[in-house]
């Protein structure tokens, strides 16, 4: 198992290096760029040339990439030029990441806690009104664009009813220790700040959870249906095992294998939804920073955020593989 993990981690390094190269070339082939974003409509050919020289943008691209790699190995990814000029891109990532982790955690928690029990029940009661309702809900979840749902939720619950905040992460003065605002409130005993941060999470998390909910529900339902037809379930029933044991040990555990893979893939895919959700709710996570960095042609921040997203994706998938081994002992012995 350890060798497997080490091998996957080494593969991840290769993926990140190749990705960084592709990203670098792609970003630098885009028209406009940092200089336009920095100077705006005040630019003159002289100021443009001076800034390009000062930033080293007039050098050949492979020289620029070499300089970038050598800095990156020292943990320096360069200063932001658009999202927060003058701030190290890595600092921006570290400031923004907790927000996206909090949001993604809530979204995936909502999706998993609702989708797995509902998927299981829908399969057990196939064709029932519950099954039909579940299928319809999951269809809507996949079909309705995230940003549209986000707008609807915001309009209804924040603007019209004033039940929940319309955006942001927190609207009380609070002490930030880890930048996980809910946790910070607990750590500093500013419990009102935790509650306030949780309120800010509800609407974006619901919006972001719809696609994972729909996908996990359908996979759970299908997997449970498949397992219910297996011989060993019938054998367990024939042996007179209690339905609780059959459900927990034989049906759910076996049905969980594809579900866990799906959850892993959904966590990886959350970032795409987070870009839109965070933008609608002005939620300062990495999705929001990514959109802004692209708009401002902030190369340093774009590079760090996209590479971080790739690392998270690979790590989540590694975690899924490890979980696989925990759930299915056969994987460990292979």
């Amino acid at each position, binding site marked *: 198992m350890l060798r497997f993990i080490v091998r996957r981690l080494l593969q991840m390094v290769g993926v990140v290096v190749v990705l960084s190269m592709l990203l670098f070339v792609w970003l630098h082939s885009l*028209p406009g760029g940092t200089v336009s974003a920095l100077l705006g409509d005040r630019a003159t050919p002289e100021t443009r040339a001076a800034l390009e020289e000062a930033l080293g943008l007039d050098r050949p691209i492979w020289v620029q990439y070499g300089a970038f790699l050598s800095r990156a190995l020292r943990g320096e990814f360069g200063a932001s030029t658009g999202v927060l*000029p003058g701030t190290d891109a890595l600092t921006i990532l570290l400031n923004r990441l907790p927000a996206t982790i909090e949001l993604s955690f809530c979204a995936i928690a909502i999706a998993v806690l609702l989708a797995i029990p509902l998927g299981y029940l829908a399969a057990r009661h196939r064709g029932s009104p519950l099954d039909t309702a579940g299928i319809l809900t999951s269809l809507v979840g996949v079909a309705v664009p995230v940003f549209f749902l986000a707008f609807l939720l915001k309009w209804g619950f924040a603007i019209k009813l004033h039940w929940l905040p319309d955006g942001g992460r927190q609207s009380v003065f609070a002490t930030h220790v880890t930048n996980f605002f809910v946790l910070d409130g607990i750590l500093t005993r500013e419990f009102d700040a935790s509650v306030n941060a949780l309120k800010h999470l509800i609407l974006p998390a619901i919006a972001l959870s719809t696609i994972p909910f729909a996908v996990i529900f359908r996979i759970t339902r299908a997997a449970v249906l498949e397992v219910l037809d297996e011989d060993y379930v019938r054998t367990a029933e024939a042996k007179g095992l209690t339905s609780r044991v059959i459900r927990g040990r034989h049906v759910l555990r076996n049905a969980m294998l594809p579900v866990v893979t799906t959850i892993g893939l959904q966590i990886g895919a959350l970032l795409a939804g987070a870009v839109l959700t965070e933008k609608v709710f*002005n939620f300062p996570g990495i999705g929001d920073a990514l959109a802004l960095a692209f708009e401002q042609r902030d190369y340093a921040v774009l590079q760090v955020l996209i590479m971080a997203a790739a690392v998270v994706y690979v790590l989540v998938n590694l975690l899924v593989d490890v979980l696989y081994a925990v759930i299915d002992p056969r994987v460990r012995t292979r």
Partner: protein
Amino acid sequence: MSARRTFAALAAASLLTVGLSACAESARDAGTTGTTGGGGGDTFTFGAAGAPKVLDPYYATDGETFRVARQQFEGLVMFKPGTADPEKGGQSLATDWKASDDGLTWTFTLREGVKFSDGTAFNAEAVCKNFERMFNQTGGQTSALYWSENFGGFKDGKEKSLYAGCTAKDAKTVDIKLTRVTSKFPAILGLPSFYMQSPTAMEKYDANKVTPAGQGFTFSEYATAHPTGTGPFVLENYDQANKTVTLKRNDNYWGTKPKIAKLIFKIIPDEVARRQALQSGSIQGYDFPNPVDWAQLKDGGNTVMVRPAFNIMYFGFNPNSNPKLKDLKVRQAIMSAINREQIVKTQLPEAAKAASQFIPETVAGYNKDLKVPEYNPDKAKQLLAEAGATGMTLDFWYPSEVTRPYMPAPVKIYEAAKADLEKVGIKVNTTTKPWNGGYLDQVDAGKAAMFILGWTGDYNTADNFIGTFFSSLDNRFGLKNYEWGPELVQSLKDADSTPDEAARVKKYEDINKKLVEQYLPAVPVSHSPPAIVVKNTVKGITPSPLTDEKFADVTVG
């Protein structure tokens, strides 16, 4: 077994939380409790369209940085509220100023009893330290864009500088020497980049330390956490993780102290999200509401304050990309073909006006007698025929991913103009690029034969408009392609350096006339007023043509 494991995990998590909480202290005190949104009697929360780029305004060029700086800092010269004119007295740190006969030495009389928020005295010595700091830049030169744009070079002498020196004659009198006469002095001192900053704080936090890092720069601790001015508010906190900048009242402020205790800028880049935040009550005002929302906002219990228009939108030409444009008749034909009044009526907010020249009418040098060719498609066709350009092809560019106060919706403005051009037989090729994704740099590189662009003034001089546009032969207008290019550039230099005001105004009036009647390097289209919106209960804001609103007098009902 499973239950035991779960219990053990929960116990470990609880212990970890309790352990960590022992290390984490609440940083709240009496001044930092309460809400950061929605306000209350002593808090005003404003929706900002972007994050301040840097907290030291000397290194900034963007409106969002300046908006915050305007509450914390003051300049020797400040603009009279609601205008673009320098005001002696008022909030200016100089109560009086006058030029020597040769126009090269300016003597400023400083306000007494003023201190920076860190307790440092504001006096002539502090003024000179500020100017020397700005002039002596080394690593920060390319970040000090407003200095290089307005003062030219630095101490290293690579480029000639407008600044020649500063002398503290006594504690409250200071001389600033210039290398040449210019119409923009002392108005440029009202720009936030040249506001006075505490020499003590700048030295303590190494304000001049600007270091290249990758493809950007990192700024000093001063510029990120300790900006120190003389203004009515001081920085309390810039919470980057929560996208809020919180200022608090400067209780030692020399002038009338703010009525609100806290001023919060909540950063909401999306305009729709800002409007929704106002509707939900989490902010009490924001800038640049979309003109199509003005009526709805007014009906929703808000005050839409329309600023005086201090900008210009124009359709620029560059004959380098289309030699037919070298012919004045072709450019005149295009001007006659475009129904500018209609564009103003249908595409711009209420109080917008069609432009007759390249400066707003409030700027000295505006030529009231200028007769602008009216919309006349037949005349346009005739001019095209005379120039042998009937049925000509024209590459016309407009930007995407941008709105500006002078062009709220570039695509719609473009479509209206394109339809007009096609009516007179011009074949229009559309080119659009993202504002920061190729539009600006390629227009500046002279790639666009015809393009939409504009400008919002920094201060009330003609030079700030037409001097900015047409003082270089090698820019977006391709002036070097015209015979009259050098003459225009020289006449602008000459007007700017004329000390006598009446003579200078006359020269600018003449240039404006020639620009429209003889040169026509672009078609002046419109002056469009941007707005600022606040809840009806918010009072005390004077809308400024320079977006120079101060929030010290704000009351929140």
